[in-house]
């Protein structure tokens, strides 16, 4: 698109958005301190940083949700204030948040023109025009969707497209995308990138907020890194490597994202799954050895999470057998599963893992609580000591054992959940998307922990959709598609290409 790029270049003289010296205080905290951000029309500007770095505060200021305490905002060269979400929108700023803000009972077309329905001569709403205009908008971003479908019935990826189409309808010049790929499959990510490129070709400036390095390298032109509310760097993406970007984000160097301290897996079968079938799964058989990390890859809907929940007894199975350490499990019975030594580190931390309002120590000791009790009475001193030892060993950052766990970062929450299983003394741990929603810095710690657990003789089954961690951590890799196992690779023979080929059924 050289012609369009040239066109965008001419506009670049006046930046569509220039934020300078932005500061924002919350009681007791400086969330943003003297932060600058300047956009170029037709370019993708990535905004990176760990949780708490100030990304979301900055975005919320842009969206008009928060007011700023210091600094200036210029839109197309003119100094302005954003007095509220409606005002921000009026001035051409459209933020697509992670949690989609569409009315799920309305059709796609209705949602797009929510702010202002075109009316006919009589003042009644011109439904035919709405439908026609909506279709035209989707043609402009190069995406096909049924505009008469009820929005709530669409997958998240398509709802995102509806939000983007709305941005065009609202004539936004700046589109902010907050972690847009966190629940998308690789195919959907590719589609999203096509649409983003279409937006930039229309001269729109895009702010792309993400943790994911590979995506940023693929889509961004420029990257700004924030840390602890401060501006750390703004560089063309070409000037960055994986290492420099991570270093900017976490403020230190990571030698190796995927450390490997363990040797060969043993030949002791820790878990054996034979012919397991459910509504969503078909004839799944595999074995895992003590000291091994077995990676499972699959696209959305491949059945990874279903498999994980079936083998730990959370969901019922229709056929097949599961044995831990040679002992058969009773299907659909988490109690015996846990007592035999198998458990799930869930992908859905809030929904299935954490007791958000309870303290760290309660969360950590839950599964092993019986071992601290005599006659049903909990020996709280022993419980605390055991929990503290894991907090130290896993370097769980928490103000105290009695802090409510919802106040911890995602990475530290994940470590608590992992500690819950180790305290119980599980021999087989099924980890489902272990790094979802976790900072880069904490990710490497989780990777190191998984490696360490395998080295200690645990069998780890890792369900993941992240290619780097699959390839980096696994001893063996199984690929799933449509509820079946469609490929199996050793660490040495696995490549991204082979795995993706097997995954696409």
């Amino acid at each position: 698109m050289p012609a369009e790029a040239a066109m965008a270049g001419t506009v670049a003289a006046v930046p569509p958005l220039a934020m300078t010296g932005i500061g924002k205080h919350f009681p007791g905290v400086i969330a943003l301190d003297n932060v600058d951000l300047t956009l170029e029309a037709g370019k993708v500007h990535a905004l990176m940083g760990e949780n708490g770095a100030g990304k979301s505060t900055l975005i919320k200021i842009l969206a008009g949700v928060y007011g700023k305490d210091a600094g200036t905002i210029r839109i197309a060269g003119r100094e302005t204030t954003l007095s509220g979400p409606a005002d921000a929108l009026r001035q051409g700023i459209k933020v697509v948040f992670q949690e989609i803000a569409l009315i799920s009972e309305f059709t796609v077309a209705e949602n797009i023109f929510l702010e202002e329905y075109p009316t006919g001569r009589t003042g009644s709403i011109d439904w035919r025009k709405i439908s026609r205009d909506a279709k035209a908008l989707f043609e402009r971003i190069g995406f096909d969707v049924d505009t008469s479908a009820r929005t709530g019935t669409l997958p998240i990826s398509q709802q995102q497209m509806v939000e983007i189409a709305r941005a065009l309808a609202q004539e936004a010049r700046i589109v902010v995308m907050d972690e847009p790929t966190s629940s998308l499959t690789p195919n959907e990510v590719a589609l999203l990138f096509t649409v983003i490129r279409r937006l930039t070709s229309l001269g729109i400036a895009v702010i792309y907020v993400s943790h994911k390095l590979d995506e940023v390298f693929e889509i961004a032109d420029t990257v700004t890194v924030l840390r602890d509310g401060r501006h750390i760097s703004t560089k063309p993406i070409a000037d960055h490597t994986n290492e420099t970007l991570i270093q900017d984000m976490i403020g230190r160097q990571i030698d190796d994202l995927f450390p490997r301290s363990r040797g060969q897996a043993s030949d002791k079968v820790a878990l054996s799954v034979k012919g397991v079938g459910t509504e969503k799964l078909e004839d799944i058989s595999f074995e895992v050895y003590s000291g091994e990390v077995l990676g499972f890859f699959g696209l959305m809907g491949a059945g990874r999470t279903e498999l994980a929940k079936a083998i730990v007894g959370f969901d019922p199975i229709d056929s097949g057998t599961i044995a831990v350490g040679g002992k058969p499990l009773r299907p659909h019975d988490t109690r015996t599963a846990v007592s035999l030594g198998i458990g799930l580190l869930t992908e859905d931390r809030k929904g299935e893992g954490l007791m958000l309002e309870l303290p760290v120590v309660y969360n950590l000791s839950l599964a092993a609580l019986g071992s601290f009790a005599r006659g049903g009475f909990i020996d709280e001193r022993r419980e605390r000591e055991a929990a503290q030892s894991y907090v130290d060993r896993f370097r769980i950052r928490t103000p105290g054992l009695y802090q409510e766990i919802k106040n911890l970062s995602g990475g530290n929450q994940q470590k608590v959940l992992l500690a819950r299983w180790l305290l119980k003394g599980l021999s087989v741990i099924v980890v489902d998307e272990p790094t979802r929603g976790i900072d880069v810095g904490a990710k490497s710690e989780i990777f190191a922990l998984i490696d360490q657990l395998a080295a200690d003789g645990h069998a780890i089954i890792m369900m993941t959709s992240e290619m780097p961690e699959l390839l980096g951590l696994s001893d063996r890799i199984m690929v799933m598609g449509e509820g079946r196992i469609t490929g199996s690779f050793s660490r040495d023979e696995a490549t991204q290409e082979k795995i993706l080929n097997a995954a696409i059924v």
Partner: protein
Amino acid sequence: MALTKMVTEVSSPPTSGSLVGALASNGQIVLVAALVIICVGISLVVPQFYSGANIIAILRQVALVLIVACGMTMLLITAEVDLSVGASLAFVGVVAMDVINLTDSVFLGAVAGIAFGAFVGLVNGVVVTRLKVNSLIATIGTMMILQGGVFLYTREAIQNHHHIASFVDIGAGYVGPVPIPVIIAAIIFVASYVVLRHTTLGRYLYAVGANEKTARLSGLRSTRLKLFAFVLTGALVGVAGLILGSLMNAGQPTAGRGFELTVIAAVILGGTSLSGGRGTLIGTLLGVFILKIIDNGIIILQWNQDLQMIVPGVVLILAIYLDILRRRADAR
């Protein structure tokens, strides 16, 4: 490090209203203060508030509500609720009185009453955990069944036909200066406190209410835990029904109207969340005292009688609003 920043960023509210939020999250201090203000206020106008007779009167009323509130606290902690306790209270008295009349045995009557209460709890529990009916709806259902059922059972109050005096002692008797219901309530309260605070069972009840899926994945039998809370609440209704029947020296089918609302209002006022996973028995104790002392105060202040209905209504709304504030403070 980024962590401390993150913690505060998440927990600090972007807008004003933090004062109210802070007050709400320190609920128990507020409750104690409210209790003190109410007591001082009433006693300034009516010095007899502190008379032995009035204190005993208050304690006896507190006892009746507290006994059931102990079970209700545990039930709400598991994220379930039982609205049938008032209707069951009346039925328990009728059944116990009838059995006493038939057998001449207060012991058998007591066993029958408590067993009946526990059975109602079991039915509630099974409907909620097995049939997966929302407990609010399910127990409104059992409430209606019990209200109708008790009139099928008897049209009028069942009298203590054999004039057995020991039955009257359950509610009206004393050990030294302390009314027997107060002693029963104190024992139940302490036992419940210990279970909830210091045993695995108590901890598991919190876990099930905080996140049932987590509890299941951790190997807990969530349905059994909920069933336990239902049956316990039912059995405690049995105890309270026995005391009420004894106080009235009859099984009254019309008793217990609105009792469930008093109990639930007290528990929520005490800081137990309707959405499960949090709550304390100390809070419940304070909640029961506040409601019952307000009630007593309106009577001895000889205020307009309509206030007897209005004030608890206002307190109930206030209690729910506190719960909302608390959750809103948490969401930040």
